[in-house]
């Protein structure tokens, strides 16, 4: 176990796979993606297998997450946006489970990899663009032309709108990635203080109490962040999907 706080983000090969000269190895990141899918799908599948009219506690957790995302999407993108429900629900459950699994010591955090969060953000924005053009044709471009802007300012405003649209996948992915990365590094640093201070005898052990308290407090905070970031990702996905469903409505 290295004391290096970034060690936990290292991707290690488990099974080497090489297709056409490109490295597609099954790594610890892949393993935890599989674990995330297994845990999330397994939980949702097993808790709802009774199909109880009166839900058990665990079944109501699954139902609550369903209704939580459903109401979020309905508020964010209207009833026409409900066709994206499987997508938003999958994204939320995947990110939430990956974040929570990452909280287990020695577990790899899938969402602490920029390429993973960026791929998810591109998936969202790609869906918005494809559906927007498919549904509204070039009318989708009205998204970049807000109502009631004086003609002289219009080029500037349109440029700003386009830049803000293009920066969405970056902000969406970096927000999730940076939160998970920074949280885990902070936890590791404070936990590392506890270990290194307690090496200095009795005084060191006494001094290690403060970082220990910090570590415990940060662990609680990180659980909150794990949920919050999944929520933020889902909410922003709903907002962006609203642009695809109703362009030019804002």
């Amino acid at each position: 176990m290295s004391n290096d706080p970034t060690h936990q983000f290292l991707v290690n090969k488990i099974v080497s796979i090489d297709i056409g000269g490109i490295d597609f190895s099954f790594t610890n990141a892949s393993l935890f993606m599989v674990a995330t899918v297994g845990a999330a799908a397994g939980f949702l599948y097993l808790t709802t297998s009774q199909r109880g009219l009166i839900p058990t506690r665990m079944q109501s957790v699954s139902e609550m997450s369903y209704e939580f995302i459903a109401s979020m999407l309905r508020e964010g993108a209207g009833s026409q946006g409900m066709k994206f429900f499987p997508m938003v629900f999958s994204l939320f459950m995947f990110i939430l489970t990956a974040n929570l699994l990452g909280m287990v010591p020695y577990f790899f955090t899938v969402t602490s990899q920029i390429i993973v969060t960026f791929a998810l953000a591109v998936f969202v924005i790609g869906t918005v663009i494809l559906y927007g053009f498919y549904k509204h044709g070039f009318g989708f471009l009205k998204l970049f032309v807000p109502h009631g802007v004086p003609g002289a300012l219009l080029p500037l405003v349109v440029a700003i709108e386009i830049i803000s649209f293009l920066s969405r996948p970056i902000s969406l992915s970096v927000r999730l990635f940076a939160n998970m990365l920074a949280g885990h590094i902070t936890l590791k640093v404070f936990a590392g203080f506890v270990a290194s201070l307690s090496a200095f005898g009795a005084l060191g052990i006494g001094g290690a109490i403060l970082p220990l308290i910090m570590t415990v407090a940060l662990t609680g905070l990180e659980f909150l962040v794990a949920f919050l970031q999944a929520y933020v990702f889902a909410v922003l996905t709903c907002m962006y999907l609203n642009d695809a469903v109703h362009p030019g409505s804002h």
Partner: protein
Amino acid sequence: MFVTAAYAQSTTTEGAEAHDAAAAGEVHTETGVAHEGEHGSGVFPPFDSTHFASQLLWLAITFGLFYLLMSKVIIPRIGSILETRHDRIAQDLDEASRLKGEADAAIAAYEQELAGARAKGHSIADTAREAAKSKAKADRDGVEADLAKKIAAAEARIGDIKSKALADVGAIAEETATAIVKQLIGGTVTKSEIAAAFKASAGN
């Protein structure tokens, strides 16, 4: 800005990195890791592009599978559970309102019945009272008439007896007068004379 800088860093070091990884024989040892993780010298692990292709592939596989599972199995299932419950609650509410309607109708019918019965009771009591009153009056009238008849009969009888007694008094007086005359004067007096005398004295 931070990200783009890091990206630039990762792309510039990509070649060297790949070479390094190949030399290390695809195994990251602890020391190799520590060396790579060191500030400035190596690339920051999350920006290490060596495994980007692998991560993308496995993310596509796992997330694609997850999406399929959600959209084909889990979401229809939870949706149907919620739908069933919603329908059941609506059905129960309908049933409850129907039963409440029935109960209200039953109460209204009961009230109506009760009012009818009460009115009927009143009328029965009234007629019974009237009948009793009239019967009592008739009885009293009958008894009074009977009594009056009896009084009249009694009075008639009394009058009869009185007149008969008065008549007897005349006869007794005539006999007594005859006897007295006989004793006093020793002669006989005829009955007609006595009666004439008596009539004369009675006429006075």
